[in-house]
């Protein structure tokens, strides 16, 4: 079984990943990937990352970097 870093599909918890920050993060990575966010239901929302056609060879890396980026920004909001 492959991890979230390979599939690009994840269920995020709004208590860890702030959905508003994830949306902003999607704009930052707009040149590299498309990000679809689902609505928040019981603190959870779905995330689907697909890399742009010209970055398909780097898809795993783009997904991983994006997940790290949104976690970093969200954790900073938790006053580390």
């Amino acid at each position: 079984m492959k991890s979230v870093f390979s599939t690009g599909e994840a269920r995020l918890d709004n208590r860890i990943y702030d959905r508003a920050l994830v949306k902003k993060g999607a704009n930052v990575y707009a040149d590299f990937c498309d990000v679809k966010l689902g609505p928040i239901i019981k603190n959870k929302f779905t995330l689907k990352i697909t890399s742009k056609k010209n970055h398909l060879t780097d898809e795993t890396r783009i997904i991983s970097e994006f997940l790290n980026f949104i976690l970093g920004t969200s954790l900073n909001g938790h006053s580390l």
Partner: protein
Amino acid sequence: MPVLNGVVSRFDDEAFQFVVNCKLYGTGAIFKTCYAFMGNCYVYLDFEDDDHIKVIIKQKEGKHLPPNFAEEFLNELVNQRLRVDINLETGKIREMLIAKALFTLDIHENSSESSDDFNVDILKINQLKGI
């Protein structure tokens, strides 16, 4: 590693998965631990249930992870938890010391003898030297 059975598992793409008890370590310590590893790893977090956080970590390309990475991660969790505890025990004293130091600094800066001119001898060093 029988001790780690049930705590750590591996994915096909070499990612590690830890299930960490929030009540034991605290979410703050778990977040700090993950943040400490984000330079060398990709990290994903999710609440498994109210008492457990699932941590998935994968090594970044070109970054080196120690062979006993799982144990190092678990040690860092204890380390961060201890830091939280020490902060709870001594945080107020530290805040008071800093507040006192800053308050004293403020008085010196506002005193009439205070000056940016280096020729003004605030500490009267010249008198001590007999100059």
